């Protein structure tokens, strides 16, 4: 196998949703949730995908998993374009791609014990057919995520938020995936527990050679965990580069505004800090602005931004941004 080839390549991904025009009327329209997004992830790498609610980051993840069928574009995973595969062909591929959700409580079946939850994918995919061996594997997985063997007999409601997220991680690990899509995996957790889970994700990555797509809105957490970062706004990637370049020398005005909005836990520093507070709100993806979609809120927009769609172009080596002024 060619190890230099990316594990995952997303090419010109487009996902439209049709809304309205149903039983209760309303004008029919098209939501451009993801609008021509391309990126790739190398084996063992973590790509952070950041943006505000409705920017398309979660839909991008769901398209990669083929939980949503893309409107256009290709999802090339281990050299195969998943968009051309049927359900039967997809099943073995799904084993290689797992997901960890934001809210562990709603993503765990309340009527199953932790042991049953973790054992289920092992049985469904026929990975460990023997029940006794399966129980042993469950114990091993619990150990990997920092839980005890006796946790296997508990129900999700008997666990704390952090412990539930550990169960979600153990379930994802059970099938030995290559790629894990982490969709806001720590944002529902308490601050003191967030750091535990992030450390765990990093340890597991090193131990099992995992590749992560880390979808989140918290820029401090994303900086900590990511090798490269993509910033999304209204269905498009507006900036993508390695971690250091993005945080040390951001090019897109939206990235700069996001970074400036993050509060810093230090009153003395905050008192001196100039803050770029963006006016307005994220426009509707039903009716996105003309030209650059960010122009109505952009502090440096010029006339050209209204008419011209900026291309995501390489401005410095390995650093791409979609802004004509960058």
């Amino acid at each position, binding site marked *: 196998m060619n190890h230099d080839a990316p594990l995952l390549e997303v090419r010109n991904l487009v996902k439209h949703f049709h809304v309205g025009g149903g039983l209760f009327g309303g004008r029919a329209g098209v939501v451009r949730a993801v609008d021509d997004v391309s990126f790739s992830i190398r084996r063992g790498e973590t790509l952070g995908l950041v943006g505000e609610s409705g920017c398309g980051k979660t839909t991008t993840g769901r398209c990669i998993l083929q939980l949503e069928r893309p409107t256009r574009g290709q999802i090339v995973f281990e050299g195969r374009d998943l968009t051309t595969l049927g359900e039967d062909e997809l099943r073995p591929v799904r084993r290689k791609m797992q997901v960890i959700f934001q809210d562990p409580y709603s993503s765990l079946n309340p009527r199953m014990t932790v042991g049953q939850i973790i054992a289920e994918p092992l049985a469904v995919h026929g990975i460990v057919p023997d029940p006794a061996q399966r129980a042993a594997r469950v114990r091993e997985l619990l150990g990997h995520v920092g839980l005890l063997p006796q946790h296997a007999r508990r129900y999700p409601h008997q666990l704390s938020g952090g412990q539930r997220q550990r169960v979600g991680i153990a379930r994802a690990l059970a099938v030995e995936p290559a790629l894990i899509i982490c969709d806001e995996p720590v944002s529902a957790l308490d601050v003191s527990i*967030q750091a535990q889970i992030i450390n765990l994700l990093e340890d597991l990555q090193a131990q099992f050679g995992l590749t992560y797509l880390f979808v989140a809105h918290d820029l401090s957490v994303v900086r900590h965990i990511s090798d490269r970062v993509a910033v999304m706004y209204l269905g498009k990637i507006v900036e993508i580069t390695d971690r250091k370049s993005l945080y040390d020398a951001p090019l897109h005005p939206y990235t700069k505004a996001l970074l400036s909005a993050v*509060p810093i836990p230090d009153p003395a520093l905050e008192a001196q800090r100039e803050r770029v507070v963006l006016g307005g709100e994220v426009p509707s993806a039903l009716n996105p602005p003309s030209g650059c979609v960010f122009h109505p809120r952009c502090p440096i927009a010029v006339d050209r931004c209204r008419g011209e769609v900026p291309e995501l172009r390489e401005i410095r080596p390995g650093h791409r941004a979609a802004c004509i002024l960058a």
Partner: protein
Amino acid sequence: MGVLLEVENLTTEFVTRGGVVRAADGVSWDVGEGETVALVGESGCGKSVSALSIMRLVAPPAGRIVGGRVLFKGRDLLALSDEAMRQIRGREIAMIFQEPMTSLNPVLSIGRQLTEGLEIHLGITPREARQRAGELLAMVGIPDSERRLGQYPHQFSGGMRQRMMIAMALACNPSLILADEPTTALDVTIQAQILELMKDLSRRLAVAMLIITHNLGVVARYADRVNVMYAGRIVERGTARELYANPRHPYTLGLLRSVPRLDEPRRARLDPIEGQPPDLTRLGAGCAFAPRCAFQVARCAVERPRLVPIGGGGHVSACWEAANLDRAVARSGAAT
């Protein structure tokens, strides 16, 4: 600056299947006139219950206030009649909640939700109330207020709804606003807008604020003083500057260290607080934080520390090792 609100030994209990939980266990704190004070802590620490207790909105029979006093402008709110308390709520003390959609009435127009309180509390005519409602929307930065008054909550975005909540809170010129995680449900850029708006309005209108949050970053920029809560008790209090520069409770220190910060070089590894928050039905005699504490000594397991002064300026900490903490921190900092 006079004291506006003084909470003394407030104790609120809830009856749960696991037993009786003291959500607020003898907490005392105060808010000065025009001051912004924060209650910081993680879920279940008792910060929201403290605010609900002040408003006497703890729901019986499961929850009840079993002790303490809440002195507002010198009057004990816990001793007032229900009718007198209704005069306080929304008029003298207003509240802003985390999720504006669930605290707005979906079938009443924005205008009606604003004018209702004005008519009830201020006894003004519907026409006057309507005009005041328009002014309030403009004040919180909602443009085109005439048209907006006729709309319904679902036609507002999350940020607009929170602006609307702020307008409702300000409607009767209260002297205190209790804001419970006011920006947690909002996006980062909208969060910044709302916080700047709240800060600006509180200064301009001289309204005191109690901000309840789990986000230490939010507090750093907006609070004058900070109370840190853990397992139903206040474990540390001080001015924001003092608390961040010189934390003297291991829990505060742990919270500050566990978050990655954009203004600092990236660390190879985060420094979490190990373990889980305690089960409030099974608290022992010792310090509730002891099982997770890196600085614990033998005494911590058997005897609960009280808040004691650290230096001057009202900085207090409930930790047996508080006096030694700065040296211990320097040591552990050097070791990493």
